[in-house]
């Protein structure tokens, strides 16, 4: 980010960074319902949005919030919401609607412990799978996971870019600690980070199909009131948006939901690695757990243990190929997570032959600390 003298340095929370980044990305609608530990995002946007001509609404519940977010996006405005596990569960109905209707929107899930009301003020990473498989049916999800306040900003901008480019909901998976942690960041100036807007149609109105199957599989998207009148339904539909029962069209639609994202998986994947080139043991962690993992890897290196770190920033689609590559010399891989083991199953799926998968899990509402991970490295190496 900017090192310009005039650039603004700020000591802020991860949640505040998400809110500032939403404005930066051109988000002009927020619909949400208060839930700990995500509320600072709603509060920040309630304050900021009117100043940018945007609108904020506190809905009656999370189901209504997600409905309003999708409605606003179909009307042509970049939209988002923020919540935590229990609210995310309620939103799944209309997140599914957004997948089916290919409506761009961003959902921040500041994870806390569950199931149910669980641990409102304590950290967790137990919605990892919910971000992938939360709603019913077949679809492909995009989720990104920042590990610092600066990344909260950058990844929120990325999330909007992914949502707009691929016409799909995108989840930002943070957690209670990242959401509430304060760090100094330099706010990027206008134009410094790329901001992508959805592709708009430029065809005559009578040619416009809201779900047209284009070579890139991304359909240009008009908004209500632009002069292109179109139908949107959660029923499986044809290219014009009208319900269909034809097997060919049904399969085409579902293939499109998957392929429009999987075809660009390489561009979506963001991965940070450290010292994996000669690593015999790789630690894999995301978000807050990865910060402790990095420290642990450095501690191991001091003890001349060939350890490395792999930190996926894009969690979904899962970086299969990229992680497998980094594991090519490893004999062991240690997956450290704040849950009972969710990401570890993905690693088991992709780990090369001869690379044993170990796991370290903490699900007592506390973060993993570097010493714990270091000890586990010593134990399994």
């Amino acid at each position, binding site marked *: 980010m900017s090192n310009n003298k005039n650039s603004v340095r700020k000591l802020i929370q991860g949640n505040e960074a998400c809110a500032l980044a939403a404005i930066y990305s051109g988000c002009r609608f927020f619909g949400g319902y208060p839930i700990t530990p995500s509320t600072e995002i709603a509060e920040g946007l309630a304050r900021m949005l009117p100043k940018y001509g945007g609108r904020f609404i506190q809905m009656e519940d999370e189901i209504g919030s997600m409905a309003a977010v999708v409605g606003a996006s179909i*009307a042509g405005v970049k939209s988002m919401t923020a919540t935590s596990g229990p609210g995310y569960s309620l939103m799944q109905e209309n997140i599914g609607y957004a997948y089916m209707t290919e409506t761009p929107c961003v959902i921040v899930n500041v994870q806390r412990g569950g199931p149910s009301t669980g641990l409102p003020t304590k950290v967790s990473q137990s919605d990892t799978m919910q971000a992938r498989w939360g709603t019913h049916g077949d679809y492909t999800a995009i989720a990104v996971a920042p590990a610092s306040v600066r990344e909260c900003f950058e990844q929120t901008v990325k999330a909007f870019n992914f949502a707009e480019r691929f016409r799909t909901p995108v989840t930002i998976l943070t957690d209670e600690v990242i959401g509430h942690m304060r760090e100094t960041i330099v706010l990027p100036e206008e134009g410094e980070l790329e901001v992508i807007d959805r592709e708009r149609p430029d065809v005559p109105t009578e040619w416009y199909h809201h779900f047209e199957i284009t070579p890139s599989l991304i359909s240009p998207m008009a908004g209500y009131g632009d002069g292109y009148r179109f139908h949107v339904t959660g029923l499986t539909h044809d290219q014009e948006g009208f319900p269909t029962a034809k097997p060919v069209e049904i399969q085409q639609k579902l293939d499109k939901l998957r392929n429009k994202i999987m075809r660009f998986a390489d561009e979506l994947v963001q991965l940070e690695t450290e010292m994996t080139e000669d690593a015999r043991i790789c630690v894999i962690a995301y978000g807050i757990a990865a910060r402790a993992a990095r420290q642990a890897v450095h501690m191991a290196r001091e003890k001349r243990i060939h350890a490395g770190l792999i930190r996926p920033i894009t969690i979904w689609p899962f970086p299969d190929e990229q992680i497998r590559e980094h594991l090519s010399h490893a004999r062991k891989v240690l997956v450290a997570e704040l849950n009972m083991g969710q990401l570890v199953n993905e690693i088991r799926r992709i780990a090369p032959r001869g690379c044993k998968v170990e796991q370290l899990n903490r699900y007592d509402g506390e973060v993993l600390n570097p010493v714990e991970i270091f000890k586990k490295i010593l134990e399994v190496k």
Partner: protein
Amino acid sequence: MPGTVQASDVIHHYLRVKKNFPNVWCPGCGIGIVMGSIIRAINKLEYRKNNIAIVSGIGCSSRLPVYCDFNTLHTTHGRAIGFATGVKLARPNLKVIVVTGDGDAMAIGGNHFIHACRRNIDITTIMINNQIYGMTGGQCSPATPSKSFATTAPYGNVENNFDAAALAKGAGATYVARGTVYHVQQLDKLIIGALEKKGFSLIEAVSNCHTYYGRMNKEGDAVAMLKWMKSHAMPIKAAKSLPPEKLEGKFLTGVLWDIEKPEFCDEYEKIIQRFQKEERD
């Protein structure tokens, strides 16, 4: 007809005739009549097609938007008003209409319904009340009268039913009216009144489901049910001069509630204007 289109062409002008017919409704269903009323009201008010968004949930009534040539949004069960709220806030210049059924609006959508009334957001909700779930096959709805039969109330409904109009009034809506699919001309006028109202308006359109409600409760066919509406509807103006015993078993029609209150989008716009002005100053 004073609208922009010849009287004989009005309905066709506003429908997606090429793509989506025949429709899903049973022969004799009242929902088509409500669709006609909505279209005539829009034509009379000379609204432009591009400036109208019709939003619906799930159920027989909620299939209405697919046939209409506007910006149309068929959403999830009970959530139409939530989606409509987002559309309206994103584009306050759009005329937003919600078409819903009694099950959609009062059961699963009850929470969204009362809060939209409370906010007084400028959305016209047309609730087609056929007192039953039609699409899923004749189950009890929150508008099914006590003791009536339904597939999930085979021994008679033991619950009480909602009065949607009273609920809307109590929750803060600024325009509440009830009509029937028998009294079509009145229904046209009520919808015009609702569309012209700045604020949350509810039209309860009493309709017939002879396929399920009529059959299970021995109310007869579509014609018999329309006749029942004719004999049991009581205009609110006439009701005022009648003694209570004459009103037994009747339901009131007409404009039941019409008041002025600040509208949500207008109030929010004032905040936007204030802050953007402050930034300029």
